[in-house]
């Protein structure tokens, strides 16, 4: 919501309107560099002291034919002088680099919003490719918007003429021209982008220069040209942000670093075994570049081999990690069951995407909770964690390592495509402030009268000891057939199976005592309505609850990061609310778990169109629940 609050004077004397927050979407062809533009703008905005959130939206095709709607790539950013929770429901400003980008994105723009259009691309051919029957610049389609038409293509060509690039190369700077204009619009500093361009094109200084010239030209255009549509500059004040050192971080980065940090705290080598799949591959790519952290990455022949190699690595005394997305996780189910049976640490990262089956690989969804909690043969409990934001992935990564190694158990970490790709500002923690939890491998002291017993448990955690092959005297054999309590030898004994089944369940349930009590993110600890979320719905729920609370509604936000076991106070907490609403980007999964566990009449709010919730959608749902309650009270 853009709220004008004051008028400032530009250095040049032009007035700059002060706004509290803005949503800008850059949209163009896959080849137009919209993701780069977006991330540069994100950085400049962070440096300007705003809070922010982003939503990159990639096309499904690798490189669709130029100018087609299915080749449109977009990047949305919401930034402001206050806490920003989501990438924004609807853009205040849409930058459309071609007709297809306009076609796909216009519907989302807020009524009366600004649409900046590169008219240089609005040829008949491109209009047709985008599926326009007539030219939207002329047929009234844009009525109701502030339309700013600029021939950005032409202006860019002019700006970079001096550098003797080919037409094609020259046109590639269009995005920088546009970025320059938007920098002017929101009063951002160009320096980091200039430096970044110099670094990126270190081997082609002519291209670096051309891009910088385009960036400057766009900026100057804003300063000097009389802008169409009466557009003028804005300023967005700094947000109140906890002081400290910041960076932007995507969920994939945060998770990779969190896992590396966890391995360090556990004093273990990490072996990540994975098989590429969108959107999970990024984690593999990042960790593949971190070999100096004693991280082994292994691109296996498939997901089954990946999880098995990870379990093998854990058997050998390293931290085995595997990562995939829904369909790949499905393939890992059998092997995860083995890890549960042999009780070895294992981390399984699921970057969820829309399904079922191949589904919509580039679209987000959080529909793998059932699979995480229930998706294996037999009684096979494990730990399930869900990160609530890009930055939260760091701490979730560490928590996963802590629980996996302390309890000798697989831990499933749920992330999603949205969170993985979206970046947000992150107050960089001091790693030295994290308490180490080094693994104490079994040693010769564990050798008793009957030799080493790999299934004698720690009384408190119920974890079995971890003996590293290579250690003299601790030779033992484990496997997927039921193991005798104590020795771990094959046992077909009926009562042993009952006991081991109970122990496996008790071990996982007991972890509830080693995780934080469930807190309330916003609002009271009891009341009329609790909105219970998990995962990347954090942003829209927190803003929606915040907005409704600002309107004096009695609603609280509870957000789960521990999905299994659930926090031990959760049942009591939920019992304190008249109604419980569970928004999920699936057809209702956490809600099933809560109803079954606590017999609480939790209601689902589902959305499965591959897009994150809009704040208004959750606000509306809250309103309707509160209305209903009033209705009943009458």
């Amino acid at each position, binding site marked *: 919501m853009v709220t004008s609050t004051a008028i400032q004077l530009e250095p040049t004397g032009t007035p700059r309107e002060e706004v509290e927050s803005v949503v800008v979407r850059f949209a163009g062809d896959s080849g137009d560099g919209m993701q780069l533009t977006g991330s540069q703008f994100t950085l400049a905005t962070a440096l300007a002291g705003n809070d922010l959130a982003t939503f990159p939206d990639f096309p499904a095709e690798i490189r669709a034919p130029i100018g087609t709607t299915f080749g449109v790539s977009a990047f949305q950013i919401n930034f402001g002088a206050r806490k920003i929770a989501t990438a924004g429901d609807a853009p205040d400003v849409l930058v459309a680099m071609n007709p297809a980008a306009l076609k796909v994105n216009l519907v989302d723009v807020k009524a009366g919003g600004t649409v900046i259009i590169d008219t240089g691309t609005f040829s008949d051919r491109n209009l047709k490719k985008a599926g326009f029957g007539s030219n939207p610049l002329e047929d009234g389609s844009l009525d109701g918007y502030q339309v700013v038409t600029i021939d950005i293509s032409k202006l860019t060509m002019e700006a970079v003429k001096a550098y003797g690039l080919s037409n094609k190369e020259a046109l590639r700077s269009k995005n920088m021209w546009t970025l320059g204009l938007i920098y002017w619009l929101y009063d951002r500093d160009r320096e980091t982008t200039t430096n*970044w361009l110099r670094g990126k094109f270190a081997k082609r200084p002519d291209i670096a220069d051309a891009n910088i010239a385009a960036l400057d030209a766009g900026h100057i255009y804003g300063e000097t040209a009389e802008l169409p549509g009466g557009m003028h500059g804005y300023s967005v004040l700094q947000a109140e942000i906890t002081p400290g050192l910041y960076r932007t971080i995507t969920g994939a980065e945060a998770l990779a670093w969190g896992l590396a940090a966890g391995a360090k705290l556990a004093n273990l080598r990490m072996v990540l075994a994975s098989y590429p799949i969108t959107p999970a591959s990024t984690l593999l790519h990042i960790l593949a570049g971190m070999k100096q952290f004693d991280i082994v990455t*292994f691109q296996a*022949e498939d997901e089954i081999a990946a999880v*098995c190699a990870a379990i093998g690595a854990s*058997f050998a*005394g390293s931290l085995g990690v595997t990562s995939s997305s829904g369909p790949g996780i499905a393939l890992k189910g*059998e092997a995860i069951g083995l890890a549960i049976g042999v009780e070895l640490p294992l981390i399984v990262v699921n970057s969820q995407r829309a399904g079922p089956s191949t589904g919509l690989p580039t679209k987000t969804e959080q529909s793998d909770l059932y699979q995480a909690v229930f998706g294996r043969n037999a009684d096979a409990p494990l730990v399930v964690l869900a990160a609530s934001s890009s930055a939260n992935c760091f701490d979730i990564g560490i928590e996963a390592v802590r629980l996996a190694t302390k309890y000798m158990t697989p831990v499933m970490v749920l992330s999603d495509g949205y969170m993985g790709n979206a970046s947000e500002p992150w107050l960089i923690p001091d790693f030295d402030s994290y308490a180490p939890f080094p693994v104490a491998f079994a040693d010769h002291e564990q050798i008793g009268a009957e030799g080493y017993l790999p299934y004698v448990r720690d009384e408190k955690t119920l974890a079995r000891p971890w003996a590293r092959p290579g250690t003299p005297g601790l030779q033992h054999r484990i*496997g997927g057939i039921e193991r005798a309590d104590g020795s771990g030898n094959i046992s077909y004994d009926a009562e042993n199976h009952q006991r081991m089944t109970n122990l496996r369940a008790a071990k996982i349930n007991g972890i509830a005592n080693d995780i934080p009590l469930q807190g309330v993110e916003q609002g009271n600890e009891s009341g009329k309505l609790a909105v219970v979320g998990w995962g990347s719905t954090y942003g829209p729920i927190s803003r929606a609850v915040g907005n409704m609370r600002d309107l004096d509604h009695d609603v609280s936000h509870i957000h789960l990061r521990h999905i299994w076991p659930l926090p031990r106070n959760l049942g009591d907490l939920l019992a304190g609310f008249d109604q419980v609403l569970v928004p999920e980007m699936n057809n209702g999964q956490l809600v099933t778990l809560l109803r079954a566990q606590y017999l609480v009449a939790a209601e689902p709010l589902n959305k499965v169109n591959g897009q994150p919730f809009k704040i208004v959608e959750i606000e509306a749902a809250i309103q309707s629940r509160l209305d209903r309650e009033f209705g009943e009270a009458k």
Partner: protein
Amino acid sequence: MNAPAKPSALLAKDFASDQEVRWCPGCGDYAILKGVQKTLADIGTAPENVVFVSGIGCSSRFPYYMSTYGFHTIHGRAPAFATGIKLANPQLDVWLVTGDGDGLSIGGNHLLHVLRRNVNMQILLFNNEIYGLTKGQYSPTSKQGLRSPSTPMGSLDRPLSPALFALGANATFVARAVDTQQKHMPGVLLRAHAHQGASFVEIYTNCIVYNDGAFASFAEKNTAAEGELVLEQGAPMIFGKDRDKGIRLKRDTLSLEVVQLGVNGITEDDLLRHDETNRVLAGLLAEMRNPDFPVAVGVLYCKAAPAYDTAVHEQIAAARSAKGAADINKLLRGGATWTVGD
């Protein structure tokens, strides 16, 4: 990693665990167990540095009977577990035990990839041409026409040759041994152990319950001499009770023939000499089948190539020396940062 004192003079029995062996009486796997335990004693490795990994099947129960570390995993996936173990700790001496079903049916892909990657381990494929554990269904190596519970009218699948498969997978070491041939087996296993990379050993083993006599034409006392060709590097290929038969190359058709020494003036010099570095020759030998040919046993193929796990850790070492000691705080502060003041 631990560098344990080398125990002196280990015996085969030092590699036996305290677990009762539970194969059917008369199963060929018993002999292989003995052969492997003897080989390990001969090698003299400390049991704590050895890991036996297996899938599921009668054969895959193997690790329980060894006094080493052992991991009985899930059906077909042992190569992946073994790869993970080597990636975590390349110093471990990893032995993989699999069956013709475990390794070539459900696990064919993992076997393929561990072979082509050349991960340093010994792979023992117990080939009894049947699914033993699940009670006798035909396997990918079963002879065509086999009647089994799932093929009451006879199986229709064309069988795989494990050795040919391994060669097609770019394996660097391919050998064969026979359950009944206790003298021959340890030599082959020693060679497999010595080879850096994935050493593939097919071991013919008799499932006395569901496929008894599958290898009777060469694996029994009275048939071995005529039915089998024992390969030795550089040696002419002679076989037969009276050592009077040999293998000759039919050069123009790129194929082999059995010849009688002394007949038509054929001498040892006319015979092929084994060259285990020649993959094409190995392919020809792998295809020799009774009754037209003797079955080739011993090392069919061996060619040096870097081991995958070693190379992986070389890259890690290179990255560490190039990028310096790992520092999480530095990692978190890499790239663009900004400070928000109080």
